[in-house]
Structures are given as C-alpha cells and as structure tokens.
C-alpha cells in the first residue's frame, strides 16, 4: 500500500523521460501525458482514501528509515492538495492539447509538464527539508522552461523576472537549510521537529521567520509578491493557469507545513496576520488598478493568498481547516478563471478590457463559465469561495480577531468589485471605440475549440460539486488541521516508530 506514496512522483518522472526520448512523436506524447496524469489522479484518490482510513502513510525511500534516508509521507493535508493538484493538472493538460501551439513547442511542452507534475507531487509528499528544496527545484526549473516556452520578446522579459526572483528564493532556501543544519544537525522534518524543540526559542523563531519569508516569495505574500503580476500574464494560457492555480499554493503548502511542524506557535501569530492582511489589501487594490484580464486575475492570486495565510496566522483547528478548505477552493476556481481568460484571449485576440465587450451575447456559455468562478472568488454564496471565507470568518470571530476578519470581508467586497469590472468590461457593453482595434473577429456567435472548453467546464462543475459536498470536504480539512496542529502522529510515522 505504501507504494502509493511514491508513484505520484515516480510515474510522471519516468513518463517524462520517455516523452522526451520520443519527442519526435507528439501524438504519442499527448497520449502518454494524459494517460500518466489520469493514472496519477487515480492513485492520488486511492491515497486519499487510504490515508483517511489508516492515518499517515510513509515510505522510506531505499528502505532507509528515519533521518538517514529520505522519507515520503502522506498525511491528509498533503494528500488533499495532491488530489486537487492532479485534477487541475489533468484538466489543464487537456486544455493545452486543445489550444493551438506549434509542434516544436509541443515537443518540449509535454515532458516538461510531466516533470512539473512530479515536482509538485514530491513537494507535497516529502518529509525531508533538503528533498523539499530539490522538489522545489524540479518544479521551478520546469516552470522556467514552461514560462519561456515560445521564446517571444515579452516572454523572455517577464520570464526573466520570474526566473531570477525564484532563483533568489531558492538561494535563500538553501541558506535557510544550511543554517538549520548548523543548529540542529539534521534535515529530516520529523527529526527537526524534535531537535528544534531543544534549541533556544529565539533562534527557532528567527529560523521560522526566515522560512516564512523564503516560502513567502514563492507564495507571493506581501511584500515579496511583486514578481508575480509581472511574470504570469505573458505565458501561454494553460501555463499561466497552472502557475496561478497551483504553484503559489505549493508555496503556501510549504509555509503551512513548516510553520505547523517545525515552528509551532501557541496562539495567533501577529506577524503572520499582519502579513496576511497586507497581502489581501495590496493584492486587491492592485487588481482594481489593472485593465487586463490576466493581470487582474494575477493580482487576485496575491489577495487570495492572504486568506490562506490568515488561516495559518489564526492557528486554531477551525482556522487551519478553513485555510485548507480555501486552498482547495482556490486552486479549482483560479485555474478555471485563467482558462476562461485564455478562451477569451484565444478567440478575441486580446485580454485588454477596453478592447473587449459584449461577449455575453456572443458566447453566453463562456460567460457563465466565467461568472461562476468569478463570483466564487469574490465569496458570493452559495459558491465555494463563500464557504471557504465563511470558515475563516467564523474561525476568526471565534477568537475575537475582529480586525483581520473585518479586513477580509472588506477585501471580498473589493474582489467582487474588480470581478464585476472584468464581467462588465468583457461580457457586457461594447469595445471602447477609442481603443485601437484588436483582431477582427466579426460580430456573430463565437466558436471555441471543444477541447479547451471541456476541461474549463469540468473545473467549473467541480467547484459546484465542492459546494454540494462541502460537509465531507470540510470534515476532511478539519481532520487534516487536527493532524497539523498535533504533529506527533506525523513525526512518529516518519521516524518509523
């Protein structure tokens, strides 16, 4: 059974090797990619069922247990995120197959995408700090290739920002690992959880802050997020979608994992809450200032990260459950939104609000596909975003953190405002006659490639399923939060005791 823990990493890696070795056969690459991701999704679900039944599942790689070897560990938290990630990765892969690209790009796209998948899976499953670094590097290097795939002028310029900032973060990550090793003499996270408890709390706090900042760069929290809105929008739509939906969330995952396991606090953390609040506000104001769908959506990523961090900052079971709930919701919704943005850009030839308009008459179905996740993002009931925000607001009010709750609610109103701006600009009204015209796309009903619409619709449907199945989902999140706040089970499982 424990093999299940390894396969989500190993399968895509092997498939990536095969896919690149045979990169002259794009049709084979396509089939291989979809087959692999479907299998991994199935495995992830099996893993979820298993972990729910049996608790933390571990796999000592090479049969070297404890701190000697690298251990992969699947607890509920990591498995929940894993399942959602795989859903999104599969959906976006189908979307990418459906969207036009040159064959030479495709050759590189599929193996890189599979490697990205493996990197994400490993980041979620590893219980070793240095291996987490390696996992991040796998994921990031794949993302570097994906964001510059196509090699246009704009992409290189914005890709540079992305690559450099992430490299900087990687350097700081390895620095933090070095300092941690200097203090505790181990990199196994469970071992660290034990050994860090013995060193001076002040040093531990400083280390905790350093890791928070390191992962905070990837997660794009204030004031470390500036790279994100500059670099995401230029990549091809499926790439942006997967970045927006998943990559920052892996950063959030790492923050939550390290802060709960290695640097647990005994109450709400003011530092994290302040960062959360600022992240929300600055992100949403940034979104309001933009005039391009993809840039607006990019700024919203930042704002939304604030909510997840808020859940961590409150540091109660309910709040962490809310954060997990929020991550799941956000991954689905955000990816769906970027996919819709890609559809708009694909058919209309632009993503500038001024050049767009009236699409509700020309593509009502696409309009609905946008509206549902957009409203969900703004926290409109009964959609998933509402439920996620409700959990956080309840958790915050429970421990009388009125300020952050107030901020989060105000930000959700502003989110609504800016989502409505997109709706109003893209789907209502007419293109600004003063704006330079985009491509001529006629005035009739618009036609969209079926393979692009299908996964988008599937993701939107999933967000609705989220609503219906909210209770079991919340239960699992709560369960995961309990394990996070009481990591003894995790530690014992990883150390093989």
């Amino acid at each position: 059974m424990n093999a299940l823990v390894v396969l989500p990493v190993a399968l895509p890696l092997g498939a990536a090797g095969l896919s690149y070795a045979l990169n002259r056969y794009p049709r084979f690459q396509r089939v291989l990619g979809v087959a692999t991701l479907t299998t991994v999704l199935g495995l992830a679900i099996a893993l979820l069922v298993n972990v729910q039944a049996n608790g933390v599942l571990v796999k000592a790689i090479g049969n070297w247990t404890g701190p000697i070897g690298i251990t992969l560990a699947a607890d509920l938290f990591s498995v929940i995120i894993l399942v959602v990630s795989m859903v999104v990765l599969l959906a976006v892969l189908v979307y990418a197959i459906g969207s036009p690209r040159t064959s030479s790009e495709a050759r590189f796209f599929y193996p890189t995408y599979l490697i990205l998948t493996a990197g994400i899976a490993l980041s979620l499953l590893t219980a070793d700090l240095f291996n987490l670094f390696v996992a991040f590097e796998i994921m990031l290097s794949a993302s570097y290739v994906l964001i510059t795939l196509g090699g246009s002028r704009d992409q290189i310029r914005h890709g540079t920002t992305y690559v450099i900032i992430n490299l900087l973060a990687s350097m700081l990550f390895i620095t933090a690992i070095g300092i941690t090793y200097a203090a505790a003499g181990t990199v196994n996270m469970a071992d660290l959880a034990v050994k860090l408890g013995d060193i001076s709390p002040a040093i531990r706090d400083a280390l905790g802050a350093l890791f928070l900042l390191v992962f905070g760069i990837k997660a794009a929290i204030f004031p470390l997020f500036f790279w994100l809105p500059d670099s995401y929008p230029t990549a091809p739509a499926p790439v942006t979608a997967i970045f927006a939906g998943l990559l920052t969330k892996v950063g959030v995952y790492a923050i939550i994992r390290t802060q709960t396991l290695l640097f647990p606090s005994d109450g709400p953390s003011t530092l994290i809450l302040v960062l959360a609040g600022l992240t929300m506000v600055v992100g949403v104001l940034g979104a309001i200032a933009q005039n391009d769908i993809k840039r607006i959506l990019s700024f919203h990523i930042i704002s939304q990260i604030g909510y997840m961090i808020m859940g961590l900052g409150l540091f109660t079971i309910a709040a962490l459950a809310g954060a997990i709930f929020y991550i799941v919701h956000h991954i689905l919704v955000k990816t769906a939104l970027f996919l819709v943005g890609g559809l708009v850009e694909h058919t209309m030839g632009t993503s500038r609000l001024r050049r767009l308009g009236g699409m509700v008459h020309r593509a009502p179905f696409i309009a609905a596909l946008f509206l549902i996740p957009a409203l969900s993002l703004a926290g409109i009931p009964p959609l998933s975003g509402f439920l996620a925000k409700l959990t956080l607001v309840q958790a915050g009010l429970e421990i009388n953190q009125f300020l952050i709750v107030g901020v989060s609610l105000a930000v959700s109103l502003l989110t609504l405002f800016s989502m409505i701006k997109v709706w109003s600009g893209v789907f209502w009204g007419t293109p600004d006659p003063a704006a330079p015209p985009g491509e001529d796309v006629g005035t009739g009903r618009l036609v969209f490639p079926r393979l692009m619409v299908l996964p988008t619709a599937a993701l939107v449907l999933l967000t609705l399923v989220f609503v219906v199945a909210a209770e079991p989902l919340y239960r699992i999140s709560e369960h995961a939060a309990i394990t996070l706040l009481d990591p003894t089970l995790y530690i014992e499982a990883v150390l093989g005791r």
Partner: protein
Amino acid sequence: MMRRSLIFDVSIDTVFRMSLVFSIFMFFAGHNAPGGGFIGGLVAGAALVLRYLAGGSDGSQQVGARFAHVMLGTGLMIAVATGFGGWVWGTEFLENTGVGAELPLLGTVKATTSLLFDAGVYLVVVGLVMEALGSLGHEVER
C-alpha cells in the same frame, strides 16, 4: 575554417578517447573512492568540450545534439526504472540491490542497482553537456 595540423587533430582525438575511458573508470570508482555518475559524466563532458574547442563546429556536436534528447530521456528513465527495478525484486523503491556479475575487461564488478542508477546519471550529464554545447556553441548566422 582555420587550417589545422594533422598532429593536433590526432592528439586531440587520442585525448578525447582516453578521457572517455577515464570517465568510465571514474564512473565505476564512485562507490568506494571519489567518482561516480556525476563525475564520470562530467569527465566525458569535459572531453566533449575539449573536442569542441579544438574542432570548432565541425558538425560532430551537431550530431550529438540531435541525439541529446534521447540520452537525456533514457537517462532519466533508467534512473526511475532502477527504483522500480528494486520493486520487481521485492524490495523498496530505490533500494540498493546487488547482482554479482563478471564483466569482461573491467574485472569483477558488483552490478548493484545503484550502479545502474549512476548510469542514468551519467547519461543525463553527458546529454546535457551535448545539448548545451550544441545549442549555445552554435554560430549564429546573421
């Protein structure tokens, strides 16, 4: 193209071949002395660089670059497959299992799975060097 002396060409060729042999030696040495897949691969890479610097773009590394993706992909697959190989023999993923074997020329070599794993590493390193030299070393016609 610059004119080159025959002696220079021959000596470079010899050094290149010797380096390749040395890289294979380093590759096998790894388990007990400094060496291993990375270092072996790098020595081979260095040999390639040397030949590149000596020969300019005479097409050989172009040929190499054309097959680089096969080496890279295969290397990665071998490394992963080693992990699964352990499984087939009933051990853990990436667990080291030994299969004793007499290899000609190299003497008694205990062909462990980690050796196979190292072979994957070797292939990837060489593949990367070939790809990088072939791509970046290419003269831009403009």
